[in-house]
């Protein structure tokens, strides 16, 4: 019930291409879906987040698509750059079930090649 499944585990994209990472959740009590970017030796940093009342949110080159009925959401990185090479985590949060906690996916290691 608390799992967030993320795919792919790793991704290689050419510079200028589109990177797509997918996540699925089970618990319908989740009401907040952020994406985090993590560089080696650093903590995760929030990229973009969406709530289930909208189907898409765009911030710069980053877009979240959200499908409530399918319980799936995805991150699209347009015009991918070598500086985007990092590990990306989807997460889901709900105010029920013990605090303001996030349940994270297992991560996607993105490499953007020149």
């Amino acid at each position, binding site marked *: 019930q608390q799992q967030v499944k993320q795919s792919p585990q790793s991704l290689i994209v050419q510079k200028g291409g589109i990177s797509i990472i997918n996540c699925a959740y089970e618990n319908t009590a989740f009401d907040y879906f952020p994406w985090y970017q993590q560089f080696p030796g650093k*903590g995760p940093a929030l990229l973009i987040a969406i709530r289930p009342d909208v189907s898409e949110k765009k911030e710069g080159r980053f877009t979240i698509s959200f499908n409530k009925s399918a319980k799936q959401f995805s991150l699209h990185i347009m015009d991918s750059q070598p500086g985007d090479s990092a590990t990306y985590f989807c997460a889901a949060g709900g105010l029920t079930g013990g605090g303001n906690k996030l349940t994270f996916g297992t991560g996607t290691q993105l490499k953007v090649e020149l």
Partner: protein
Amino acid sequence: DAGVTQSPTHLIKTRGQHVTLRCSPISGHKSVSWYQQVLGQGPQFIFQYYEKEERGRGNFPDRFSARQFPNYSSELNVNALLLGDSALYLCASSLDQQGVREKLFFGSGTQLSVL
């Protein structure tokens, strides 16, 4: 402005020992959460504290405990360390307005190695 600061950055302990990790939230943030990140996995929720009270606890054994101080800084304590406790321990802070979803700001973590 300083971000979330954690100390120490690295720590090596042996099995059976205990460890204390420290976190200072962003100025003005009243909520601190702790996460454990095992290599190759996503962070896993351990605790959330707000105004010195525990708001939530993840699925971790009683060997894990935490507290929050009047200045909103926090400590995570782990007793009777096991090899499996080796991980990056992340602290995150937020303003935590009641009932409002907020951005979590993570520190760079404490890398704990248990030998």
